[in-house]
């Protein structure tokens, strides 16, 4: 059962990710990216990270992707025109990426050959546990993050506003 669930959502994620790269229209890429994020949220849920799964759906699939779709529509982005790609990327890109994937997969297989995931085997990812860690151990990073978001808001407004005459 675990294997079937994992395979179903892993395949959805990979197919959607390939679609993100292959589609030529930005809106199609954005919708595929929402598919990746949704299936990843379900995988997080299976790994016991219920708070992160909810945050993934709300923050990523909700807020960030709405921002993307909004900008795509605002700029009226059309199908991209193919031209002038670097020769080195064209020749070396795919073989190097496949080598990278092969190396990572090889070392990952050697890392924990026996360890398995039993869905429901870890229940420490509740909102309570996350909140407790966030406001004790990770209090300083949390506060710094809030300042970072404030800076990002101000920066985004300054960058995107109309120039005053």
């Amino acid at each position, binding site marked *: 059962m*675990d*294997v079937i669930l*994992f395979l179903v959502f*892993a395949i959805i994620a*990979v197919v959607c*990710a390939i679609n*993100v790269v292959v589609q030529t229209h*930005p809106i199609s*890429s954005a919708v595929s990216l929402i598919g*990746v994020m949704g299936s*990843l949220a379900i*995988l*997080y849920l299976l*790994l*016991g*990270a219920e708070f*992160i799964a909810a945050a*993934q759906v709300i*923050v*990523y699939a909700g*807020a*960030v992707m709405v*921002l*993307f779709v909004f*900008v795509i529509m*605002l*700029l009226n*982005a059309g199908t*991209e*025109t*193919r031209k002038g*790609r670097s020769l080195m990327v064209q020749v070396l*890109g795919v073989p190097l*990426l496949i080598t990278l*994937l092969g190396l*990572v997969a090889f070392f*990952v*297989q050697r890392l*924990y*050959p026996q*360890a398995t*995931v039993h869905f429901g*085997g*870890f229940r*420490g*990812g509740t909102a309570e*546990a*996350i909140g407790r*860690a*966030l406001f004790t*151990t*990770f209090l300083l*990073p949390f506060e710094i993050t809030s300042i*970072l*978001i404030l*800076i*990002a808001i101000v920066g*985004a407004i300054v*960058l*995107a506003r109309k120039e005053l005459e």
Partner: protein
Amino acid sequence: MAEVPVSWFLTLSAILFVLGVCGFLFRRNIITVFMSIELMLNAVNLTFITFAYQFKQVNGHLYAFFVMVVAAAEAAVGLAIILTVFKNRATLNIDEVNSMKN
């Protein structure tokens, strides 16, 4: 076999990351390049959550949470930059935004 090996999760994460790099290198639309970066961040988040499961610790979830927050901030600023670039140059093709190249 009823249980999923941990390495499958990590391999899935690696596949998603490489697909993100692929999009970053091969796509020419600046918005799609940006989406590829989001894809890579998601892949890394999956690794964090998997290791949080493996070590039965909540710290990995916190790292994933911070990555998510920073990604949201980055998306807001990045899309504002894209708006500015489009306003100044009327193009979304990153090959035509090359004034720092020569």
